[in-house]
């Protein structure tokens, strides 16, 4: 009697273990065909924005073209654009480079375009500073990294926005961003702000910040502050990448443009004419 029960129990236990181990394998085998064909190719395509067109062509997707040819002629114009951004967003000007806050800033060619750099570059590329900012990627790695959804893609216009209220300052997004477009407030930024814009908040210690493509100005029907500062020069062209008739698409159709780190696969929305 006793042995019979034990034998039965062991049989049942064995069958259960076997079922438990084999079930995932069976599920996987039966659904492999449907999954396998879609996943791999997109990652392989990687580069410029060919995969982006299909992904979100119906919605507005805001982007920018930086025509560096204008800035080569007038480097001071870039400072004017940066200044306009600083004023509009209460950005602190911290002298210590380790804790500086950057929304749009200047950097050398090699830092801006490490994948396009090579020996014997033209003097123009060597001696000019390039305007860099958040690329508002179509496939933003920062958004995936954020554990609180403090950074997210705005459905309406494709801007990679931030909700400072929700940022816990973990800085995962800073590690995830291939462009260094995010800055962390190591200290209270207020003492370093020269003049407040009463329409915009400041940030506090322990919060990450970055360019927001002037979402608050767009809502009022204004252009981004940097674009407005360069008005009439054509240095910064801003518009909807999904609208075939927009000014930005005309520029993109006519000119040869490059992007920062296309191999990172984030599909940036900022293009450069160098």
């Amino acid at each position, binding site marked *: 009697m006793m042995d019979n029960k034990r034998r039965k129990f062991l049989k049942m236990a064995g069958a259960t273990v076997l079922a438990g181990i084999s079930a995932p394998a069976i599920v996987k085998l039966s659904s492999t065909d449907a999954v396998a064909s879609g996943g791999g190719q997109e990652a392989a395509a990687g580069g410029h924005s060919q995969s982006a067109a299909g992904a979100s062509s119906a919605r507005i997707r805001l982007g920018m073209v930086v025509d560096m040819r204008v800035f080569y002629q007038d480097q001071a114009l870039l400072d004017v654009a940066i200044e306009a951004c600083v004023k509009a967003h*209460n950005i602190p000007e911290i002298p210590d480079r380790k804790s500086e806050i950057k929304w749009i800033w200047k950097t050398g060619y090699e830092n801006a375009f490490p994948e396009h750099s090579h020996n014997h570059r033209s003097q123009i590329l060597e001696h000019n500073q390039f305007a860099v900012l958040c690329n508002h990627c179509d496939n933003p790695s920062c958004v995936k990294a954020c554990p609180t959804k403090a950074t997210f893609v705005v459905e309406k216009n494709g801007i990679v926005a931030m*909700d400072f*209220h929700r940022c816990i300052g973990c800085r995962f997004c800073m590690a995830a961003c291939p462009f260094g477009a995010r800055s962390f407030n190591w200290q209270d930024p207020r003492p370093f702000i020269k003049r*407040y814009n009463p329409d915009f908040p*400041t*940030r*506090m210690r322990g919060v990450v910040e970055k360019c927001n493509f002037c979402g608050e100005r767009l*809502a009022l029907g204004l252009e981004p502050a940097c674009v407005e500062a360069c008005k009439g020069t054509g240095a910064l062209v801003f518009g909807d990448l999904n609208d075939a008739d927009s000014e930005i698409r005309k520029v993109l159709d006519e000119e040869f443009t490059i992007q920062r780190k296309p191999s990172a696969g984030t599909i940036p929305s900022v293009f450069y004419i160098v």
Partner: protein
Amino acid sequence: MYNKGYVITGLVIFVLFVTFPVWFNGLDAGPLPKPEPPPGGEKQCVAPAAEMRDSHMQLLNEWRDDVLRNSNRVMITVDGKEYRKGLQIACMQCHSNKEKFCDTCHDYAAVSPTCWDCHIAPAELAKKEAQ
């Protein structure tokens, strides 16, 4: 009951200790705060005063989510005047004195909301302008 004397004395001391803040002030919660009405003389708010008193914090959270998450930046019209949704750009336009408005009740209720860590109070704005 064992050790009746100790237990009851202990209980009495405990209850007295826990209710210290209540009886120490003579069962009086102090004078009620009187937040200053808008210095500009505006009489109409986005909602009736009682509702604002109860749930301005929920309203502010809704505005925040509307503006930042849902791209719903529709203006609020009060008394024929349009305001954008926001603490700094709507509320403080009328209630321009944080110390005499927000702080009076917040101090009384011993709450310390973190709004002002980022949003700039009018007094703070003026300080920077003066420099």
